[in-house]
């Protein structure tokens, strides 16, 4: 019997968007192009063109123990080369940003391998081998999971998720890593930790509010889809709440 994963409950557009992002068989719409060099600049872990630093020799040069698990789980490219572990962190505005921290972790766990995500209410960090990280970043920035105004790369000083937007529609950033130009383009002038870049990195134009509302993965009663409109989702949440309240972390239904 084949099993079709549900990924999540709900009948609303928000629930549908969440499922789309989580389903690895669903191809996310590509919204913009970003070069390899731009990704390297934004991450700020190595200089463009510099080789990847390693923390152990490539696996091919090592004497691997005879382990069935190692034969079963194929290493990622970064692990094969012995890359060091690096991170990227995103802050997502609650004003209909296309991805949200918890959703980001779910989606990444379904789509990527060899990652270690850390999820907080307003930001999400993911750690993995540097080579893999750059590949994953490409998907996270180029596709519909990113909006130049409401999602931003922030290694530190991340505050902005729950704040009102700036008057130009950008998510608040105390370090102003990206700026909205007069031509409507958003350009990063600092890397994710706040160090100025030698040249600005263009990440495209902010998406309009209609598109954002249709592609958002957060319920918002004022600017988006209210949670209470999705009865199936409410029912699911109430069930989880009841099970956890009654049985702690080992829920058993009668």
């Amino acid at each position, binding site marked *: 019997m084949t099993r079709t994963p549900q990924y999540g409950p709900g009948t609303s557009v928000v629930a549908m968007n969440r499922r789309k992002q989580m389903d690895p068989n669903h191809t996310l719409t590509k919204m913009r192009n970003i070069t390899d060099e731009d990704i390297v600049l934004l991450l700020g872990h190595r200089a463009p063109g510099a080789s990847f630093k390693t923390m152990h020799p490539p696996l091919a040069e090592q004497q691997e123990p005879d382990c069935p698990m190692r034969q079963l789980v194929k290493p990622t490219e970064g692990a094969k080369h012995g890359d060091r572990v690096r991170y990227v962190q995103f802050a997502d505005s609650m004003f209909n940003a296309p991805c949200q921290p918890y959703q980001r972790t779910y989606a990444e766990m379904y789509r990527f391998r060899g990652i270690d995500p850390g999820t907080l209410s307003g930001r999400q960090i993911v750690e993995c081998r540097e080579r893999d990280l750059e590949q994953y970043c490409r998907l996270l920035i180029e596709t519909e999971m990113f909006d130049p105004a409401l999602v931003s790369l922030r*290694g*530190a*000083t991340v*505050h902005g998720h729950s*704040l*009102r*937007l*700036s*008057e*130009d*529609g950008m998510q*608040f950033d*105390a*370090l*102003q890593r990206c*700026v909205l130009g007069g031509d409507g383009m958003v350009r990063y*002038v*600092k890397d994710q*930790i*706040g*160090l*100025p870049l030698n040249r600005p990195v263009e990440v495209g134009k902010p998406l309009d509010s209609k598109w954002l509302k249709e592609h958002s993965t957060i319920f918002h009663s004022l600017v988006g889809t209210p949670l209470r409109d999705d009865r199936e989702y409410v029912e699911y949440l109430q069930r989880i709440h009841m099970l956890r309240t009654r049985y702690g972390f080992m829920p058993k239904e009668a």
Partner: protein
Amino acid sequence: MDTATDHPQCRIVPMRMLGPDTTKRLLEQIVVVPGIHRMLLNGQNIPLLVPYGPARGTENKTNLRKTIEVAGNAVDLHVQVGSITLEVENRKVIDTFRKICDAFFVDFPYHIQEGKFMKTHPTLVDYARYGPGADRNLIGLVDPKRKDKPTLISISNERVCGGYEI
């Protein structure tokens, strides 16, 4: 000096946070209204230096933090303004603000709240903290021990009562 407890207070809250230039344009219209006692700009701090992470301590280059000129007075704005709280002479002044804001906020909505947003009397804790000599106009607005003092906006105009504080 005793601050009058009956003076009405209001808070202007735009739906978007204001940049320095917009704040300047709004304040230019607000501060000339006669009857403002005290004014406080609230918002998210824009740090001078990067506060956290590997870049900690480096200069935070930004155009969100700058000195603006309001009615000929330099105001060192170090927040992205989210709300403007005012204590005024009477409710008519708040109605004037409402008219100004109706005309000013055309790209996004705002609302004016009336209530009590600033302390009018020091509490026992304030007394313990700052002593009997603390400026009662500042208690509850800023730390009276801060080195940078509030800006006094003086309007060289006969019809107003001398000056306003930010």
